[in-house]
């Protein structure tokens, strides 16, 4: 389908600009320009005044931590429905200097924007050809279609296969185009996606959304080579990633997003991995001094040890991780999404299939058994607060005491019937009142359903339940996700209080490095399912930035 805005002019345009790479002076014209883009979801601003431009044949990398706004930006460029269902955005998108309105993926495609998605947008039950040509099938008219419209034209499979073959060859991929996608190794699916984008005859800008996240290293190299080939042909590329070596390996320009703002745009020749890492993380660290302890935790006294620990949690796989936890410390677990940090707590607590060794106080823990984990005096506050953490329509009281009832037989009284125990309503009520006061849960009373509480107060209920078990180790995952800033501080304070006052060892998993650095004694950074290294909270931004991107550092703390 020819684009309404650029009728067949594009081809001479980029050919004209073609020069061998290396000598290539990027042309003055821009393919895509973003001007002052601002977007908010439900009152939370996720993108603030973004300005960005991409030239033909340029590989423009966009880096940033999770939640920096990368995906939102891409969804916006590609006209994904999620943007418009949440109230659209402010600012202008220009293509070739002309303002355009992109309100659906279809429009984006017509404008020559292609997207290689993070999660594969391929239909497994279709062949490579069918996927490449999805909704752009080559058809032949027939008798029925002449009467009833072009929808009934028959598919021209030989022509479709020929085109697919060409697209695959452009990528240097020697693979049978009639193979079913379900039979392809994961690494190849990415290439099929790219083939689909370049088969679009008007492709001018291709967005790669973390394309190497699921690839092995050799596959990633091939992918980068393929990207360079495309750029040589004049196609502009937006490359979203958090792998800094890849950025340095292929991009011409690098934009760094942080907290929804475009911090800086650099050219590759003028920067270094270190500088990018620093800009990516760089926040003013507000670390107020924490209360001291009688004895500081040390490696002499370990409470928990993980050896060759593996967890099969989809998307957050842990692959042979080793970790030592000191008695009485607050240990932070950080890292990017998908690297496995979330899997650790879920695996230890028996919520996802785990293998390896977990040794608590010298005793090997029985894995894949939530009850065993709870009986070993460990408690878990899940990252999925509303799904796993709370019974939303039950009262605060029930939510707080439920696990204690189930695992420790607390809050129960005997009846005259042998073997039958009933809930001791009064004990529950008294206890809940006390804990509501202690933790400052803002509510109308113990009987209020938790669904009506704010995120911060819901999180406190979760913490109260875990606390009621009097655990020796408290696992907390993403304790401040989805709650407002004021409440965040309260939740963190509460964790410090648990630690200092009751001597609980706390293992806190969080995507927000900043909050880990605020309260943790040590921070373990997880990369590809293993601990990349352990840093002190006052280590430099640069070290943190490098380590979450999987770079080994010389000066680790023990």
């Amino acid at each position, binding site marked *: 389908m020819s684009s309404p805005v650029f009728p067949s002019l594009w081809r001479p345009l980029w050919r004209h600009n073609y020069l061998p790479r290396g000598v290539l002076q990027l042309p003055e014209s821009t393919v895509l320009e973003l001007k002052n883009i601002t977007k908010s979801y439900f009152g939370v601003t996720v993108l603030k005044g973004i300005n960005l431009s991409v030239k033909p044949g340029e590989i423009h990398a966009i880096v940033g931590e999770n939640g920096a706004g990368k995906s939102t930006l891409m969804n916006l460029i590609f006209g994904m429905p999620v943007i418009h269902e949440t109230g659209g955005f402010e600012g202008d998108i220009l293509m070739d200097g002309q303002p355009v309105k992109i309100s659906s993926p279809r429009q984006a495609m017509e404008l020559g924007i292609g997207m290689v998605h993070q999660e594969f947008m391929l*239909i497994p039950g279709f062949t490579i050809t069918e996927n490449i040509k*999805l909704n752009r099938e080559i058809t032949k008219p027939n008798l029925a279609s002449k009467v009833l419209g072009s*929808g009934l*034209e028959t598919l021209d499979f030989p022509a479709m296969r020929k085109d697919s073959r060409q697209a695959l060859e452009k990528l240097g991929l020697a*693979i049978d185009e009639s193979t079913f996608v379900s039979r392809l190794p994961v690494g190849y699916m990415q290439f099929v996606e790219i083939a689909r984008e370049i088969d679009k005859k008007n492709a001018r800008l291709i967005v790669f959304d973390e394309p190497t996240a699921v690839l092995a290293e050799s596959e990633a190299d091939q992918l980068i080579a393929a990207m360079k080939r495309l750029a040589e042909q004049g196609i502009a590329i937006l490359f979203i990633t958090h792998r800094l070596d890849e950025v340095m390996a292929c991009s011409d320009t690098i934009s760094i997003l942080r907290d929804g703002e475009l911090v800086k745009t650099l050219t590759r020749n003028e920067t270094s991995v270190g500088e990018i890492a620093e800009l990516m993380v760089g926040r003013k660290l507000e670390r107020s001094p924490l209360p001291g302890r009688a004895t500081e935790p040390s490696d002499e006294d370990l409470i928990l040890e993980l050896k060759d620990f593996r967890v099969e949690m989809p998307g957050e796989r842990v692959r042979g991780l080793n970790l030592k936890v000191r008695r009485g410390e607050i240990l932070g677990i950080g890292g990017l999404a998908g690297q496995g940090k979330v899997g650790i707590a879920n695996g230890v607590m028996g919520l996802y299939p785990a293998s390896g060794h977990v040794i608590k106080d010298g005793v090997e823990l029985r894995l894949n058994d939530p009850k065993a984990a709870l009986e070993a005096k460990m408690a878990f506050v899940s990252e999925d607060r509303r799904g796993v953490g709370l019974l939303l329509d039950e009262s605060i009281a029930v939510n707080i005491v439920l696990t204690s009832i189930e695992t420790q037989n607390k809050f129960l009284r005997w009846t005259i019937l042998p073997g039958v125990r009933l809930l001791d309503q009064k004990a529950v009520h008294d206890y809940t009142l006390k804990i509501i006061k202690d933790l400052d849960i803002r509510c109308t009373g113990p009987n209020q359903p938790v669904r009506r509480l704010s995120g911060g107060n819901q999180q406190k209920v979760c913490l109260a339940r875990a606390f009621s078990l009097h655990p020796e180790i408290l696992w907390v995952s993403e304790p401040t996700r989805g709650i407002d800033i004021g409440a965040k501080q309260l939740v963190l304070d509460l964790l410090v209080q648990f630690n200092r006052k009751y001597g609980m060892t706390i293992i806190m998993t969080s995507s927000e490095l900043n909050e880990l650095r605020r309260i943790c004694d040590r921070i373990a950074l997880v990369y590809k399912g293993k601990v990349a290294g352990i840093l002190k909270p006052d280590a430099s931004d640069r070290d943190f930035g490098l380590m979450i991107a999987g770079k080994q550092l010389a000066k680790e703390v023990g």
Partner: protein
Amino acid sequence: MTAPKITPQTLPDKTTEKTPQGSHLDRILGEMSVPIFFALLCFIGIIAADLSPRFLVNEIITRLARNSFLVLSLIIPVIAGLGLNFGIVIGAMSGQAALIIITHLGIGGLPGFLLAALISVPFSVTLGWLTGQVLNRAKGREMVTGYILGFFANGLYQLVFLVLVGTLIPMNNPKLMLSSGIGLRNTIDLIAVNRALDNALFNSVKLGAFKVPWATFLVIGLLCLFTSYFTKTKLGQQMRAVGQDMHIAEVSGINVNRTRLIAIIISTVLGAWGQLIYLQNIGTFNTYNSHEQVGMFSIAALLIGGASISKATIWNALLGVLLFHTLFVVSPLAGQRILGIPQVGEYFRSFLAYGIIAVSLALHAWQSRKKVESKDKG
């Protein structure tokens, strides 16, 4: 710089790679286990009932002609991912409305039948469009929604033909209407169009000793051709894509809702015609009941033919009609013979019809859960 060439050597070798489902034979047995089970059941029933082969073959020919079209009308929604279209009941009602009209007008024979087919189109397109609108708002719950819509439409149908006819809709036809002058009679005789299609072609040509409704089979054959051709068109490909993954289809620029709507409309129109073929063969119809079991029995037949909620072929439909209706014919007699009670056979048959739907729904839920799990692991 040039990229390293990616060679097929890095791909898993196709010849040595085992399919995940095991060997070819295992897979066929797995897919065909339901038809095989029912074929055995039919076989046992035939032996137990001890029917004359002539009677049996004659019955099966009649029932194949009568029901195949209805069952085939279910295939396209399955391809488009809408599951089993319980909404064809609504199509059946449109067909009946058309029959009532031509009977009232007194047009009979093949012209009457063709006119009924034509009249049923605007009804079924409109109702199919409405059904599609509702189903597009109930994604993932199409089957139960369609089922309940059938009941709802039944209410409207009764309102029109029991209350409005003779009051708001002026009509005067003592043969069709109740003596009060309001509402239609319970049964309507279709003498005028009785076997209008069945006997339209080569009426005198017999297949051995059996009379064959050639024209009906020709129409069924045409529908088979249309269905298989349709899946190879642009629109058919869109439906397959929508059926496999709505989200990906949407991102590829396919108008998902429109595609689903078209699938339902086609199915509803075919359902209306299917009901016409069914009723012209029977020769009479219960004004307020004939359509009620259409959805259930057609769906049971399709499932017995080895189809599932996400996969159905022409062969599933034809084989299903054959098996389901063989069982229909033999089970009362088999029950009579074995236990002396014909009701047992009848009970057994309807037990199987509903049972097979339940089992098939449960199996589908189980398989799609397994699929999600293996996708997570992969």
